[in-house]
Every structure is written in structure tokens, then in C-alpha cells.
């Protein structure tokens, strides 16, 4: 379980903190989404979790222990510039394992397994420029898996994709999530995407923010696109949109 306890964070060049006294929890096995308008600090939450920034106050805990003590608890998939253009798909996938000095045979084995699972075995020796946008995201996700954490941090992974590819990728990511048994924390600004994917949604309603409103999504897995048309779901969608817009009007 990941837990933020009264976390306050301010970028050194800013006057005001961007997060103030923020507390929230993500349970193991959750598919949790964070929605909020751009620039309000969603990616900053990830930077705190993956250690790129340190909170000035408060604690980030993993199963009750400080996150710094946990080796490889999280794996991070950034918003852009995901794959290294000078590496083949295989090299891109093994990169995190190489840095962790995992033996070569083990790297190969895991790489083969993951390529098979995402159905991209024949792309092993191709370069990223030879892949479509959706395939690149699959590879980037696979690399995040191979980095070895149990909490995956995905920062707007599908926002640059065209509509149909995005729909396809949403279904794909749910399959992957249940296959690999991971916990996912997913940033998006698309309310419908958040509802379709997650069992719990955090909304950011003010800037700087100290609370995120947590909403459970009353749907079972596996998800079905038809479910999005149910009346309680459309209502939930309206509520979330209203909450997000309130912030914008301020």
C-alpha cells in the first residue's frame, strides 16, 4: 500500500507550495486514476513517488515504511520521450535490467516473455521509429513492467494517441494489469478514460491542493464499454466534470 501523509512540496523556484498537506492512499491491486486540469501538479505527485523530488514536509510510506527504504517498489512511465531512438526494442526493454545488473540470460528470458505477452515478438530487433504510436506505448509499458516495481506510475500514457488507438490501448492496459498483477496509478485528464479503467478515482479540485476527492467506480472487471452508458455511470461522469470545472472557474 502506498500512502501520502500530510505531504507538502514546493519547487525551489516557486514561492507557493504546489502540494500542501496532501494525504491519500493507494491499495495493492488497485487501478487508481488521478484526474485534474493540466499544470495543477499531477506529474509532481509522480516525481515525489519516484524520488526525483523530496517533500519538504510529510511522509510517503510503502506498507508503513518510508519509500526511500523500498528498493524498486515503483516503476515510472513518463509522459513523453519514452523510448531511446538509438536502441532496438530489445535494448530498450532490457535497459532497466542492465542498470540493475541483472544477469544477461535473465534479461533475455524476461524480454522474450514480455514481448510474447504483448504480441510483439517480431519487433525485437526493430528501432522505435519503425513502430506506430500505439506500439511504442506498448513497448514503453513493457519496459516499465521490466523495471520490476509492483506499483506502476503511468503519466498520461495515451493522451497523444488518436481516438481509436486510445480506445484499443485502454482495453489492452486492463488486460495487462490483470495478467501481471500490478498496482497502477494512472494520470489522465480524460474523465471517461478514468472511469473506464479504474476502480478508484482521485480528483484534484483546487490549486495548490491539499485534498484529492476519492470516488469509487461502481463497476466490475472485466470492463465493458457498454457500461459507460449506464445511468449511474453517466451521472458519475457529470459529477466529476462538475467538480473539475469548479476549479477552473475560480
Amino acid at each position: 500500500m502506498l500512502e501520502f501523509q500530510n505531504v507538502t512540496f514546493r519547487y525551489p523556484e516557486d514561492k507557493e507550495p504546489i502540494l500542501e498537506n496532501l494525504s491519500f492512499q493507494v491499495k495493492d491491486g488497485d487501478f487508481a486514476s488521478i484526474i485534474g486540469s493540466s499544470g495543477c501538479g499531477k506529474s509532481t505527485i509522480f516525481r515525489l513517488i519516484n524520488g526525483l523530488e523530496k517533500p519538504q514536509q510529510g511522509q510517503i510510506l510503502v506498507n508503513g515504511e518510508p519509500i526511500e527504504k523500498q528498493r524498486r517498489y515503483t516503476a515510472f512511465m513518463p509522459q513523453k520521450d519514452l523510448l531511446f531512438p538509438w536502441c532496438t526494442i530489445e535494448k530498450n526493454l532490457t535497459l532497466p535490467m542492465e542498470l540493475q545488473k541483472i544477469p544477461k540470460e535473465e534479461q533475455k528470458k524476461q524480454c522474450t516473455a514480455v514481448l510474447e505477452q504483448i504480441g510483439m515478438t517480431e519487433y525485437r530487433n526493430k528501432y522505435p521509429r519503425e513502430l506506430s504510436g500505439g506500439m511504442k506505448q506498448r513497448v514503453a509499458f513493457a519496459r516499465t513492467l521490466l523495471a520490476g516495481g509492483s506499483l506502476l506510475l503511468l503519466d498520461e500514457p495515451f493522451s497523444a494517441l488518436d481516438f481509436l488507438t486510445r480506445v484499443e490501448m485502454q482495453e489492452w492496459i486492463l488486460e495487462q494489469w490483470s495478467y501481471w498483477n500490478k498496482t497502477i496509478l494512472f494520470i489522465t485528464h480524460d474523465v471517461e478514460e478514468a472511469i473506464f479503467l479504474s476502480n478508484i478515482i482521485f480528483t484534484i479540485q483546487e490549486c495548490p491542493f491539499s485534498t484529492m476527492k476519492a470516488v469509487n467506480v461502481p463497476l466490475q472487471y472485466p470492463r465493458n464499454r457498454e457500461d459507460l452508458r449506464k445511468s449511474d455511470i453517466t451521472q458519475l461522469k457529470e459529477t466529476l466534470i462538475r467538480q473539475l470545472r469548479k476549479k477552473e472557474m475560480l
Partner: protein
Amino acid sequence: MKKQIPAMVVALSILAVWQFIAMGMDAAYILPSPIQIVQKIWECKKVLLTVHLPATAVITGIGLLISVVLGLALAILMDSNAMIERGLYPVIIASQTIPTTAIAPLFVLWFGYSIWSKVLVTVLITFFPVVIAVFDGFKATKREMEELLLTYGATKRDIFIRLKIPTALPAFFSAIKMAIPLSLIGAAIGEWLGAQEGLGYYSKRMMTQLDGAGVFAPVVILSLLAMVSVMCISFIENKVINWRREL
């Protein structure tokens, strides 16, 4: 090949016009015709290619090597330490406005007529462009990629090898391709100042003898040398940077 036809037509037209004017003037000591220059190269091919070309090539090669090695080292140093960067980078940029070749005669005072005075001119002309190009190449590293590597537990060294070098590689090759003609200019200037051999020296000697074709002949060979070298580097570049190739 088809794409190059317009350029070839232009080049041939210039040569034709040149030939026409030179024949009209009929004063080879002022303006030799292209054909006369080719004839001159053919007549003197032995001494040009076995004595003067190697002499200039050695100076250029040593000068380039020193520039590239020192330039890389300095670029890496500046990239690794912000204080060094802030101290050196503005000075290097400013030094580009100094006409360094104007102080070249000083090197003859220091090193006499040995090859080192000429090598130094070459280094002086090529060193700073190489440093700036390579350093800017390092700076082109994407921060998101660097941070991603950090989240994988990468060290500074990992980041340098896996990210900075591949990022700077295209800039590095451009720098070398730019430095080759510059270094030949440097070598030729060095040879004008004082030498017993070399294409620059030969050109200057022919000038004192009012041999127009003789002035041009080594210049043509210098240009060919530059072109061939740049082509070799391009070939290597395409082999090394294979990820940029379009489908």
C-alpha cells in the same frame, strides 16, 4: 544521383564561363583556365602527390586529432561541472570573434619552421568550433530521458554513456565534417608563413613565379582532399548513427 544533376549543371556552367573568360583574357599568370590548371596538375602530379600532399595531410591530420581529443575532453569537462561551464563557455564563445589566424606569425617565433607552428594554426582554427558543437550536443540531452534513467537507478556514468553520448553523436560528426575544411585552411595558412613543403607552400611559391595555374593546382587538390575526407566521415556516420535512417 538524379537529385545532383542541377548542381552538376551549375558547376559545369561556371567552369565553362571561367574557361571562356580565361581564353579571352589569355593571361595565365592572372587567370589560368580550368584546362590549364588540370594540365598543370598532370605535369606536376609526382611532386604534388608524393611530396606536398602528404606534408599537408600530416599537418591536417595531427591538428585535427589534437583538436578533436582536446575538444572532446573540454566539452566533457564543461558538461560534468557547472562551475567549469560557467567559467569557460562564455570565454570560448567570445574567443570566436578574435581573428586567431592573425597571430599565427607568432607561432613561427615559437616553433620555427617545424610542423608544430603549422599544427598549432590548425588546432587554433578547429578546436573551438569542435568544443562548442560537441558541448551543445551534450546539452541537447532530453531531461525527461535523463530522469527516466535516474528512476531506474542509473549513475552519472550510466547517463553519460547511455544517453549523452548517443545524443551528442550527430553533433560530433557534424563538428568533424566542419573541422576538416577548416583544418586544411589552417594548414595552408601555416605553410604560407614558412615551410619547405606542403600544398600551401607550393601555391605561394608559384605565386612568386607568376604561375597562375601553379597557384590553383594545389588549391584544387586541397579541395579534393577535403571532399574525400568529408565523404569518408559521412560514410562512417551513416554506419554508426543507423537509428536516424529513414525507412
